[in-house]
């Protein structure tokens, strides 16, 4: 077989900038590099010296696709340092705004970034010519997710209303109620979407993954829980640094994470689905069983299905919260600033997002550590590419390249996040 180099200089339909490079020699894959050249932005460095109240506004700017995730991990970590507990309706309101971000981000990724791969289009705009109805409905779904974020947060990108202790202003019952009917439509369409997506052709590909996600005794995880895996991890968030390490590799501006003494792991919708299936709502469980999608699924291409099932869940959960919502008497809980270290980990649409802050007695940040989901998945994506490209080496160059890009998009990588991603090069010698 011919030697070749597969190169994609700028990976499309991922957030941020990066490249893929695969080298094939005498019929074997000899090198895979996912290059991240999105420039470093140094958030952890300039958070030092900032007041804790500014942190959620600043960390939101790490990523325009999932600002709520950054705000939620930030406020939870800081509240952990101050020993404050946000409970009751304020806690529900945080789940509700997170539902909005999941719906918006999942709709964007499923229909606009990933589905065109499965159906053989370059983008959603081309796809819209043959599937106008599904694209229009997808846009409406995305808009409903955004609407939730806008009502609670003030705007879709970089919301202004999230603060340590709760919110600056709690929305009125009337504001919250106005999205109810749209959400019922959104839940119906998401159910339809699961059935449609289950009919796609999925490449046969499985690996023995270690899936990592949060797990909470009573609920599908958003903001709280223990960090668990299918290979024995079961730890409190504060123990994260003892089990996960980040490495700096020469070809990437994003750090690579691995499990101490083990290696790559998998975070995101498929990990959450596999580890928390029992905690999905009845409607979400029913539709996934109906289409034959159940744990333990080891095919990363089915992440698109996990995303759709989670969208059903997020709509359902949002409806539950809306039905019990009463405006709280005060939009935040009071607390006293005290020095210490705080840990936070929440489930961003792309997977667990870990924050740790050391804070002084005046409430200034002494030290910050932020590990985005994409950094945690990078090693796994490279590992998938090694094995996946090896099984498809006889495909023509452009098809192989396309398949590899699709394998990357399974993870919905967000390069802006990971650098706080992508060119494809396949080289055959």
């Amino acid at each position, binding site marked *: 077989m011919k030697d070749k180099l597969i190169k994609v200089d700028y990976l499309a339909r991922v957030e941020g900038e990066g490249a893929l490079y695969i080298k094939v020699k005498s019929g074997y894959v000899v090198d895979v590099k996912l290059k991240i050249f999105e*420039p470093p932005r140094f958030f952890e460095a300039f958070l030092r010296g900032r007041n804790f109240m500014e942190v959620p506004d600043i960390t939101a*700017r790490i*990523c*325009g696709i999932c600002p709520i995730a950054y705000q939620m991990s930030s406020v939870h970590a800081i509240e952990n340092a101050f020993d404050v507990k946000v409970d009751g309706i304020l806690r529900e309101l945080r789940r509700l705004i997170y539902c909005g971000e999941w719906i918006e981000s999942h709709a964007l990724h499923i229909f606009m970034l990933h589905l065109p791969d499965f159906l053989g289009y370059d*983008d959603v705009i081309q796809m819209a010519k043959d599937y106008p109805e599904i694209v229009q409905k997808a846009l409406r779904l995305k808009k409903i997710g955004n609407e939730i974020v806008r009502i609670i947060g003030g705007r879709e*990108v*970089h919301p202004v*209303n999230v603060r340590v202790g709760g919110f600056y202003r709690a929305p009125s019952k009337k504001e919250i109620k106005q999205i109810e009917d749209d959400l019922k439509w959104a839940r119906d369409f998401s159910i339809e979407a699961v059935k449609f997506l289950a009919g796609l052709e999925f490449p046969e590909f499985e690996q023995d993954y270690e899936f990592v996600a949060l797990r909470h005794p009573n609920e599908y995880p958003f903001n709280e829980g223990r960090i668990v895996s299918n290979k024995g991890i079961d730890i409190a968030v504060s123990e994260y640094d003892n089990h996960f390490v980040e490495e*700096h590799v020469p070809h990437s501006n994003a750090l690579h994470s691995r499990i101490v003494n083990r290696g790559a792991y998998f975070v995101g919708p498929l990990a959450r689905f596999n580890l928390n299936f029992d905690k999905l709502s009845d409607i979400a469980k029913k539709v996934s069983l109906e289409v034959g999608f159940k744990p333990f699924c080891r095919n990363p291409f089915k992440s698109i299905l996990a995303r759709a099932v989670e969208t059903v869940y997020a709509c359902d959960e949002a409806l539950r919260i809306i039905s019990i919502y009463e405006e709280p008497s005060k939009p935040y809980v009071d607390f006293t600033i005290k020095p210490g270290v705080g840990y936070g980990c929440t489930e961003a649409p792309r997977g667990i997002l870990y924050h740790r802050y050391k804070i002084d007695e005046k409430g200034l940040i002494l030290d910050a550590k932020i590990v985005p989901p994409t950094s945690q998945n990078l090693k796994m994506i490279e590992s998938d590419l090694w094995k996946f490209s090896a099984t498809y080496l006889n495909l023509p160059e452009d098809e192989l390249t396309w398949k590899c890009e699709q394998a990357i998009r399974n993870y919905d990588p*967000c390069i802006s996040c990971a650098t706080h991603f992508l060119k494809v090069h396949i080289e055959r010698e």
Partner: protein
Amino acid sequence: MRTKKPKLAVWKFASCDGCQLSLLDCEDELLEVVGAVEIAYFLEASKATIAGPYDISLVEGSITTPHDAERIHKIRKVSKYLITIGACATAGGIQALRNFKDVKEFISVVYANPSYIETLNKSTPIADHVFVDFELRGCPINKYQLIEVISAFLNNRKPNIPTYSVCMECKRKGNVCVMVSSGIPCLGPVVQAGCGAICPSYNRGCYGCFGPKETPNVFALTEHFIGLGLKSTDIVRILRNFNSYAEPFRKGSEAYER
């Protein structure tokens, strides 16, 4: 007779992707926008790319690497109109906080092997490198303003984007001023309108994501902040956010650093 559709390109430098996402967030208008222009280069949305020249280039993000400092010149050459979108492209963005510090120290905080990292000492706006036809403010931009700017350029007219302050929008909305009524420091008087006065509507002060308005009197406001009991270090921090390197904010913060 209709001629060929104008070509639109979207380029990215150091940023969070939030501003280009605003284009995809135009759910109701997206298919119309797509009908009016040919999206010729937009990697976040499509792998198909059409060669330049382009009628309109939207540029997101700031210049922070030697490679990007070269790339922006190439983009200028193939663009009839170059419009910067957002605080990163227009003022250096949140990553311009490095401009006040030693970047080497920053690299060592985040990365174990600083030698792998190639970056410039400063994060600079696009207009520091090439001629820019229009700068759209905001972190993120307002999507309706984006549509206004695109349609203005397509129709050869001046975009109708206000340069007055957030206070004007806040008054028009009928908000009670958070600074007057509750003593909450608010940058509204010196920040350019465009967001619709979101923060005061959510009971908090403006933290400046749309950058300085035309001819802002930053010192009058910051002295008022001192009267509210803020310290110089607080004022430095308030001015050093997403637009810290925009001149009025930069000079303001530097004055309180001494």
